[in-house]
């Protein structure tokens, strides 16, 4: 089920210096090798905020999908463009990641969800991204920003 969660504009901005009291921020440059920074950061957050293993898996999966899509399609493979990921823990057992980029506007939640593969001849694995997000995240929200895109993904703790 996809639900909306409260999100405050001041919690994350690529141009402002605001930081959330409970938040942690990871700043990436576009380029696939940067994705290797995600798993250790998630492990760090999981240890610090007692995020269960199953939830950690879901976070890992969704961030890899979203960030790789921003890099490959949003920035069209262009290197050294900014992506900011903010983590907040707004309430017990709920974890929110805000991904901001400066790519052309694109709302992944409006993207057509391709039907599941029925044949090995239909090799278009990339079309699975939004389906995986909807299955593994508990909330998804998109906001267009003056400079790009903001995607807010929420995860509930799951044992």
């Amino acid at each position: 089920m996809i639900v909306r969660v409260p999100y405050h504009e001041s919690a994350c901005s690529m141009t402002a210096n605001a930081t959330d009291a409970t938040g942690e921020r990871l700043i990436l440059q576009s380029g696939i090798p940067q994705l290797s920074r995600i798993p250790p950061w998630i492990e760090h957050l999981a240890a610090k905020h007692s995020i269960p293993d199953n939830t950690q898996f879901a976070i890992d999966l969704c961030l890899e999908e979203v960030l790789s899509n921003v890099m490959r399609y949003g920035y069209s493979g262009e290197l050294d463009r900014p992506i900011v990921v903010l983590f907040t823990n707004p309430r017990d057992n709920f974890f929110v990641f805000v991904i901001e980029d400066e790519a052309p506007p694109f709302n992944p939640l409006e993207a057509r969800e391709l039907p599941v593969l029925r044949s090995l001849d239909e090799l278009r694995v990339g079309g699975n991204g939004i389906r995986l997000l909807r299955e593994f995240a508990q909330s998804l929200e998109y906001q267009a920003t003056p400079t790009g895109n903001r995607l807010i993904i929420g995860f509930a703790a799951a044992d």
Partner: protein
Amino acid sequence: MAISTEELAGGITKVVLEGRLDIEGAAAVDLRMNVIAGSKKAVLLDLRNVSFLGSMGLRSLVAPARAIRGRGGKMVIFGPNELVEKVLKTSGIDALIPIHHELDSAMAALQ
């Protein structure tokens, strides 16, 4: 991500993957998987020690399965953990590459 192979009875090749099958893991195994896909006809893909499967990792499974099938062969998946299996099922991959949790049934499916 580590990859190793073992030849089993009946002409079956067991391919064992270990670690995270994310973008980096996929890059690490793709070449070897492609070689296997081009030379083997019955492949049992052992995922018992794969701790993570991302969408790029899915491609590393589907492309070889397609190549093997194109040569008249078959690939099955053996022993994914609960979350890896959920990724496979959400993507519909399980309908194309059957998932087995018992070695005997996985091998029987390849005979």
